[in-house]
């Protein structure tokens, strides 16, 4: 990573801070624009056609969302008093923010763009880029609209990922599913959302690092390359953790969120959430099962050697992901 990219990464982080800490909608918008303009140099690569295409698509979608965002906040400023609520204005603002974060009815750009990005940029797109729109969403929230949206998010995330053979698209759809959970958590409280986001970022970072190291982009690469058996095992367990299987830490945020949702009487929505995360778990397991069990023809020249330093780092993260929830009970000793 050259110094150029470090610079833009720095601006990316600070643009988010600008927009979430500003006290006017306009300041928020400025932050969003800086964010867009700093992310595009990060993803575009002059020699790679796919990343250029992705950056172009990203720019188009984000700018249209920004146009609509500034249009609706100006509308709000001119037509309404300061703390007045209006359903349609709030839906307009929410829609443009949902477009920015890639939530369901406006998510169609999201898998397409992720297909052209590297794993690290995907990681940024799935985690850090969610922060600004979500915080802004929580400022002016239309509850009924968001409830519908989050349910749709979980369903589409589950169903869309079912047929994918590209790992990046698959992770994108799983991120859409998790976006539903995050929207549900931001309905309840900001702290809960922060907890969920941190946990999710942690889990998805492990997966992205894994795939980055192994250079995996498609499912069949898992079958044909000679990966170490223990790495496959780590992959399996981290997938289970990401899907939210109980003994692992991925279950922990979902558990708390389920608890809160039930106490707020969202029974049917909780049911849909849990069932769709079962589907997610199903296609995770399907990937890993076949890579364990299938006896593919091994390409002997495709041996993957991992550097020792990276392995120790990944082992540490995986250890946290596997035993985190069990270890966290030690706090109460």
């Amino acid at each position, binding site marked *: 990573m050259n110094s150029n990219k470090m610079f833009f990464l720095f601006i990316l982080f600070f643009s988010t801070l600008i927009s979430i800490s500003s006290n006017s909608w306009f300041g928020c918008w400025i932050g969003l624009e800086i964010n867009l303009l700093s992310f595009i140099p990060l993803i575009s690569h002059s020699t790679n056609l796919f990343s250029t295409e992705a950056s172009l698509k990203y720019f188009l979608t984000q700018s249209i969302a920004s146009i*609509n965002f500034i249009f*609706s906040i100006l509308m709000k400023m001119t037509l309404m008093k300061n703390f007045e609520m*209006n359903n349609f204005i709030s839906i*307009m603002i929410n829609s443009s923010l949902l477009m920015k974060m890639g939530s369901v009815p*406006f998510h*169609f750009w999201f898998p397409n763009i992720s297909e052209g990005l590297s794993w690290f940029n995907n990681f940024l797109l799935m985690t850090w880029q969610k922060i600004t729109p979500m915080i802004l969403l929580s400022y002016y929230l239309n509850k009924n609209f968001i409830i519908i949206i989050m349910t749709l998010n979980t369903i589409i995330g589950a169903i869309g990922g079912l*047929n994918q053979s590209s790992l990046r698209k698959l992770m994108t759809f799983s991120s859409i599913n998790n976006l539903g959970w995050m929207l549900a958590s931001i309905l309840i409280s900001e702290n809960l959302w922060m907890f969920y986001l941190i946990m999710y970022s942690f889990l998805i970072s492990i997966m992205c690092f894994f795939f980055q190291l192994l250079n995996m982009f498609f499912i069949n690469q898992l079958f044909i390359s000679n990966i170490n058996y223990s790495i496959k095992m780590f992959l399996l367990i981290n997938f289970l953790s990401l899907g939210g299987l109980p003994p692992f830490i991925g279950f922990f945020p979902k558990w708390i969120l389920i608890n809160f949702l039930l106490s707020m009487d969202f029974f049917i929505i909780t049911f849909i959430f849990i069932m769709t995360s079962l589907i997610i778990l199903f296609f995770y397991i399907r990937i890993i099962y076949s890579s364990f069990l299938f006896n593919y023809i091994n390409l002997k020249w495709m041996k993957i050697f991992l550097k020792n330093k990276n392995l120790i780092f990944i082992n540490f993260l995986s250890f946290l992901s596997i035993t985190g929830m069990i270890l966290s009970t030690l706090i109460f000793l």
Partner: protein
Amino acid sequence: MKKFSICFISFFFLFFMSMVNFMMMIYFIMNNMVIFLEWEVITLNSVSVVMSILLDWMSLLFMMFVLLISSVVIYYSKSYMSSELNLNRFIILVLLFVFSMILLIISPNIVSILLGWDGLGLVSYCLVIYYQNFKSYNAGMLTALSNRVGDVFILMVISWMLNYGSWNYIFYLMFMKNDYEMYMISSLIIIAAMTKSAQIPFSSWLPAAMAAPTPVSALVHSSTLVTAGVYLLIRFNLLLIDMLFLKILLLLSGLTMFMAGISANYEFDLKKIIALSTLSQLGLMMSILSMGMPDLAFFHLLTHAMFKALLFMCAGVIIHMMNDTQDIRLMGGISNYIPMTSLCMNISNLALCGIPFLAGFYSKDLILEMVSLSNLNLLIYYIYYLSTGLTMFYTIRLIMYLMVNDYNLMSIYNLYDEDYTMLKSMMVLLFMSVISGSMLSWMIFLNPYMIYLPLNMKMMVVYVSLLGGFIGYFVSNMMIYSMNKFLMTYNISSFLCLMWFMPSLSTYGLNYYFLKLGQNLLKYIDLGWSELYSGQGMYYILKNYSIFYNFYQVNNFKIYLFSFVMWMMILYYFMLMKF
């Protein structure tokens, strides 16, 4: 080392124990003594779990017989199973069998009876499948499952007896006699005993269990497994008097006796004939027991144990010499070649028929005379005497086939009668089957039964025996052509020779419906509806949704942006309508 084989050691040990038991029995019966040992293992609330041992003349005498027969059988199997690779396992199994039988004999406690009872069932399964072929597997499974029914009833008895606070049934026989629960318990006990003693609905396993090695048959079908049910009912007999179920038992056991007698006449397998005669004698014991004379049943049980074990051992010798052929049509004239074995065979056969002054005479004649003397209906009377005639019938037929008719197996043969290991063990039982009837009748009956009958009724046994003997003689000389005439009465003769269709009923008759039900459940539930509504159906629906969704996902990028803008326009329009 050959001298100290496991057979030899076990023989000495068991024989010694048998003699000790014999001496103790004489001491006990002279002094009219009973020893009752009780060790309390644990007490939960008011239920005490105790291990108790009852030693009286009855259990000691029965133990003496079991140990004597088992010692002799083990000595016999030293030669009979001499080329067996796992002889040690075989002997250990037999010893385990004897051990469980003794546990059953000495315990007055229904829990420890269950231990012995289950041990008998398990070890008998292991012994029946000893030869490890499909026939013996099937026979073993039939045996084990039939006995399992009895185990279940004993378990139910245990749970009923929890009401009384202890499982020592011996204390409650008199005391709780009129209790309703005790009535239930005794009914359950009767059914359990019927399974173990192979009475009519459960009798198909007994001939099937002939798949076991012959020494095992000699042990199992003379004194141990099949008599366990009779012994249990003898112990429980105080409860059983004047029960309705006992009258049903009388009918069923009488029919068992009759059915087994007829089926034995149709049978050509040497061991199966003997097994069916065992079944017939068991029916006799059960029926005299259910008429309220447990002493006579016990007496017949003991004498029958002796000569039936001898009969099986002789059959084993003959099968050995016939190159493992069991079909009696291929045997014949063996009295010319193996006189000692033929002697034993004849004596045990005649004792079975009740020829005077052999073992069977004392018990059987006494039973029949007591039957004539007692107050009972005509059907039962006919069944008793017809079965006695049938016993003579199949015995004479068997003797004619084996001893007199022509040898039919192969033109080159070598029979020899100098296997002294087998002969010596048979001699012990020969001695016992000559003297045990008189010895026991002098020993265990304190005062002789008073018999007072008209001449023709008294001579009725002789009439039916002579008649049966003559028919047996004629049947054994029947030509092949005449045998074909059985085809004219095909239905009735297959009914009679297949034990009244009982083996088919208790295997295919039961299996079929459950297998059919299982197949239907598998077809319609497991592979049908539940698959459609859970696994495959869910997968199918989700897959279709996913395909449907991909139709929207793979689209022109312009359309996404345009639809978003349209959505915002619509919202804007609605918002303006508001203001």
